[in-house]
């Protein structure tokens, strides 16, 4: 058992358990807090994959900005009490969970059947180099500068659209 595997197991367990708890909690505030835990453990998983820049961006953008926004909206509109898990339309929910488990088993079978680890083997030096902020910034501002600018305009239009939508009174 190397440290890498120990870290992977810890982060993967935290990730899965907090995801499942996020889906099953009745109170939306507790759900949002479990989603923060999930995003934090995903940032840890990104670190085990040598993606330092994306791990930091995950914590800042997702766990910081987006989840604060979610919590803000939850506390602003204070949604009414939702019926407990599996109380309302239980057959439909059991059916949905069964379908999801079935599809997951299919995906897992395909992943294990195709044996991707025979085709790709991680070279640590190349993997570390690919995740540095230097390499990502170099690619982003040379080869992918047009999509980068387009994303800037997308964010601007989203900010304006959110203002317009939240301001307008529907009659």
């Amino acid at each position, binding site marked *: 058992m190397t440290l890498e595997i120990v870290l992977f197991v810890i982060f*993967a367990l935290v990730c899965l358990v907090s995801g499942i708890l996020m889906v099953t909690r009745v109170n939306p505030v507790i759900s949002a807090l479990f989603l923060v835990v999930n995003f934090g453990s995903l940032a840890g998983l990104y670190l085990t994959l040598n993606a330092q820049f994306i791990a930091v961006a995950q914590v800042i953008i997702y766990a910081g900005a*987006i989840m604060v926004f979610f919590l803000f909206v939850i506390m602003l509109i204070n949604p009414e009490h939702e019926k407990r898990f599996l109380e*309302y339309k239980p057959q439909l929910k059991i059916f949905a969970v069964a379908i999801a488990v079935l599809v997951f088993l299919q995906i897992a079978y395909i*992943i294990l059947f195709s044996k991707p680890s025979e085709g790709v083997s991680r070279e640590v030096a190349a993997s570390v180099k*690919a995740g540095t902020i230097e390499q990502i910034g170099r690619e982003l501002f040379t080869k992918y500068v047009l999509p980068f600018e387009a994303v800037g305009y997308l964010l601007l239009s989203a900010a304006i659209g959110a203002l317009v939508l939240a301001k307008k009174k529907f009659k």
Partner: protein
Amino acid sequence: MQIPIEYYLILSAALFMTGIVGVLIRRNAIIVFMSIELMLNSANLTLITFSSYLGNSIGQIFVFFVMAVAAAEAAIGLAIIIALFRNKLTVNLDEINIFKW
């Protein structure tokens, strides 16, 4: 010994299915939205896994763009939810049925 790539892919598939279950069984619009964020993150995990295992940073650049699009989507979606709540005083998706008739 390094971790086989299958572990990351299966973890990502499990997270994606958790998100799908959340979208299907929950009736609170905000929690449905958070489940969509969970699915976006599981796709990000797959992209970063392949990026790391192939030693190629294009996957991580794509994840950067996915994060920007997710931020835009969260802003617009939550604004829509606030507008709906103002209009109908509920975020229950079963009661938001003005397009059904």
